[in-house]
């Protein structure tokens, strides 16, 4: 008869006395495994999404589709108002913000404009007259254009109609979207959009504070131009930015006198090539970034309208295939945050710092006017949504 207890104890201690593996190797392996599993999960989710979309399309096309469960999420219960999918949210300042919402007690759903005056703590909802949408439609096909704390225009994608309010959505008018005459500058409280004209230079269409439109007398003085942004982006300092190009070159224009004059901003690296996909980040107005992910990862910063550029991205991990891309957001103080999707890491460069440094792996957020917005769901940018003024404390966006 064996003394099993003693034999077992000896055997387990012998096993456990094996030398531990190299900690550095384990750390590397763990980070690599996490990266691979994240990529696999994203690929699987994408495949499921594609299959679901296909299934939905096929079901809708079948003559007997009526007996098949809908491919889209069910409508909200009667009376419940929820954010539209792909949230249309914008904060005019720290306290005043707007969001598009819908209620689906029946099909079609009614569109609402939700307004907050206390930094998102509470929201008032106002129906937008005449604006309905089929329950299965994900978005309202309207652009939310916030001109001030109380003034909003909702412009249809097809350019045929505008809903306009100057009292936060309590009353509405329907001015024409067609430009009437010209203006010398983008007025205080106004917005501007780029209108591309085939074979001709672009126009700048100004949305005036009274809801009417006009052409800007002095658009950027350039050759035939294709706009890469539909909006004339407004920097935090009031500057106006237009990004576009033609078959030979990509331009970035800035105006610091409300559109009376424009200056060509020299672009670094590959960003000036024709068809360059790198998006300039001009939110701050004085500190400008360009994030290149292919053919090489580089993150450029200029503080003198492009006269000098510095590469902040020397410490970013390489991505030889150039497929992974990089996410970025410019904070209100000019700090740049860059999200590296392969590792899930976030890198940061404050205005005083010369390179990006890794600061953790928190999910990145986006700027929606004067506040940050992030999706707190399981996937990136998925409900519930939260907003923040500082990126540290977050409040759920609950209508």
């Amino acid at each position, binding site marked *: 008869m064996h003394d099993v207890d003693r034999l077992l104890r000896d055997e*387990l201690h012998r096993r*456990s006395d*094996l030398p531990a593996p190299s900690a550095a190797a384990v750390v590397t392996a*763990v980070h690599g495994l996490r990266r691979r599993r994240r990529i696999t999960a994203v690929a699987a989710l994408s495949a499921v999404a594609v299959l679901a979309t296909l299934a939905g399309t096929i079901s809708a096309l079948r003559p007997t589709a009526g007996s098949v469960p809908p491919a889209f999420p069910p409508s909200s219960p009667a009376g419940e108002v929820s954010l539209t999918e792909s949230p249309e949210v914008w904060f005019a300042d720290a306290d005043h913000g707007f969001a598009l919402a819908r209620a689906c007690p029946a099909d079609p759903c009614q569109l609402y404009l939700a307004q907050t005056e206390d930094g998102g703590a509470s929201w008032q909802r106002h129906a937008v007259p005449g604006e309905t949408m089929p329950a299965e439609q994900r978005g309202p096909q309207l652009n939310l254009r916030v001109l001030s704390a109380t003034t909003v225009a909702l412009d249809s994608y097809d350019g045929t109609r505008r809903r306009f309010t100057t009292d936060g959505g309590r009353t509405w008018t329907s001015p024409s979207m067609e430009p009437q005459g010209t203006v010398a500058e983008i007025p205080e409280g106004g917005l501007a959009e780029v209108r591309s004209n085939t074979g001709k230079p672009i126009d700048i269409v100004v949305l005036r504070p009274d809801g009417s439109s006009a052409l800007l007398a002095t658009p950027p003085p350039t050759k035939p131009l294709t706009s890469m942004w539909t909006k004339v982006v407004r920097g935090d300092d009031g500057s106006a930015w237009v990004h576009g190009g033609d078959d030979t070159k990509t331009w970035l224009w800035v105006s610091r006198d409300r559109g009376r004059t424009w200056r060509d901003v020299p672009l670094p690296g590959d960003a000036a090539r024709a068809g360059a996909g790198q998006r300039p980040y001009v939110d701050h107005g004085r500190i400008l970034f360009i994030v290149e992910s292919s053919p090489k990862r580089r993150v450029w910063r200029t503080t003198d309208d492009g006269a000098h550029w510095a590469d902040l991205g020397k410490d970013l991990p390489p991505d030889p295939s150039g497929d992974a891309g990089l996410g970025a957001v410019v904070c209100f103080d000019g700090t740049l945050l860059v999200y590296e999707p392969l590792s899930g890491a976030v890198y940061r460069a404050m205005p005083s710092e010369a390179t990006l440094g890794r600061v953790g792996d928190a999910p990145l957020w986006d700027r929606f006017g004067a506040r940050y917005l992030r999706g707190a769901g399981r996937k990136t940018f998925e409900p519930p949504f939260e907003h923040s003024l500082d990126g540290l404390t977050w409040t759920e966006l609950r209508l």
Partner: protein
Amino acid sequence: MPDHSFDDFVHAALPALSRYAYALTGERVAGEDLIQDTLVKVAGAWRRVHRDGSALAYARTTMLNTYLSAWRIRRRRPASVPLEVDWPGPDAYGPVDVRDQLRRALDALPRAQRAVLVLGFLDDLSDEEIAAMLDRRPATVRSLRHRGLAALRRQLDNDQVEGGSYARR
């Protein structure tokens, strides 16, 4: 400043975690796999784990759960071959090594029984402590240990008889 707290934790906790992993798996490669799978899960919850201040305990429980998980059991891994299949031939040097018998018998135990034996015999944990770690009742732990030891005893005794007869062929 970059956050290296997880990497620092790996450096500090690796000896303790590898001790468990090797005892549970009985193989170096499988043990290192178990360590990696465990740390991947810990890394995913690192901010919460780090904040709660019990990272090693969390990692140890995660390792046990990973080891016992159905997913891991289903993964194909090299298994110990039963003694009678790969016996090399008549042993000219006498009886079978008891230690080899025990290793094979231990590897043949169900995972829950093996986990209970490792926790009890390696770290001398009480039934209540083991029950808390494995999320089982103390009575279940006692039953698992009893059945595990009985199986080991039975296997060793059988092998002693069969090994002897084989050696006499």
